[in-house]
């Protein structure tokens, strides 16, 4: 894994695709126990991050105004 951004900074898409790759590499590649445990711990952090993002997600709505974007309040 070349990039090792902090889990908290990852978007859902980044976290879930890293997670997929991580699981695939754990399943297929021969790794040392230590490397595997490091991967596993990162995998658990990624899963928690993904679940949190899904649980806490709130639709963000912005409106194009002139040149920029502003928050849009519906209802």
């Amino acid at each position, binding site marked *: 894994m070349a990039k090792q951004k902090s889990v908290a900074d990852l978007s859902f898409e980044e976290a879930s695709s890293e*997670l997929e790759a991580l699981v695939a590499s754990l399943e297929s590649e021969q790794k040392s*126990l230590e490397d595997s445990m490091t991967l596993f711990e990162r995998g658990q952090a990624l*899963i928690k991050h993904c679940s949190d993002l899904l649980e806490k*997600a709130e639709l*963000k709505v*912005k409106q194009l105004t002139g040149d920029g974007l502003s928050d849009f309040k519906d*209802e």
Partner: protein
Amino acid sequence: MSQIPLFETTPHWTVSELTRHVRLALEADSSLQDVWVQGEVSNFSRPSSGHLYFTLKDSSSSLRCVVWKKDASSLRMSLQDGLAVEAHGAISVYEAGGQYQLYVNLVKPVGEGALFQEFLRLKALMESEGLFDPSRKRPIPELPRRIGIITSPTGAALRDMLNTLRRRLPLVEVILAPSPVQGEEAPARLVAALQTLNGKTKPDVILIARGGGSIEDLWAFNDERVIRAVAASKIPVISGVGHETDFTLTDFAADLRAPTPTAAAELATSISVDDLKYSVRQMQISLLDSIQSLLERQQVSIENVDFRLRQFSPARRLQTDQQRVDEMGHRIETSMRHKLELSLLRVQSLDQRLIALSPLGVLKRGYAVVSRSRDKRVVDSVKKVKRGDELNVRVVDGSFNVDVTNKSDG
């Protein structure tokens, strides 16, 4: 002034006769048997018989209308109070009610004719340019991060779409490009919204939508400028204009046509937050499985190494060597004991033989050993003595000396 026949006793007509006469007179007028009449629908009713009844009215008059069941089923639009329609049929009289009415066999929205002709002309033109080709359709992203919405900021369509997105995929960011969706300026504003979204904010997919309405209300979505802008969009476009049965040319140009704004929001989120939660749970299971099987493999390999280690351990070598030493010791001990026993036997046998060879045993039997006193040499031949020699005679229990007085051969 005409005279009113006040005292006439025999009427010239019965009600039935007069009504029939009027009916026949109206039916005989061919111009009344094939009429198009325009008005607003009111008092619409649909009793269980399946026939339809309504009144067409304008600002100053009203006309009773009937659609027989057989014609009702083939009407191209559904009627309701307040609709402005053009109705086609024949004028006649309902004799029981004494009312003339229009027996309707066709109904269409007001103005449909001209607009419909324009719709067909534009559709043919766009088709000939290939704007509606299936090969032009871009795939809709499965999991958009950002969704652009072009609609009226105050319409129910926007509320429906936001509610649907909030329910299905609250992870997304919505960029609303507000635009009027009907009226004179709508087409230009819709085009500008499409271009702005394509240029700056670059959502993954664009929804262009409005709620239901008459063909005139939806007309902006049949505007050539709008159709071309939808076809030219680099970002995939989902259209959700009007109700299920409404088709606009924007629908044909879009990459995907949804029957309603809500359906457009659903089609833009084919993967929902529930699907994502499920897949995260699946990945969690895979992760746990993989680490568990890895640990099991490690366990097995540790046991394997342990076994091999123990095979080659110095302790084992020592045990083996010790055993060999013990074994050697045992063998040495055995062979020594054997040798000793053999020696002992030999010694015993030598002893027996010694005893047998001892001269004492012979002396016991009465023999004597004779030796010369002067030099202690044993006398075993007459030649070793001469007369006068002193000899020593040894017998079993002692010895004595004798002198040689005579000698003779054998």
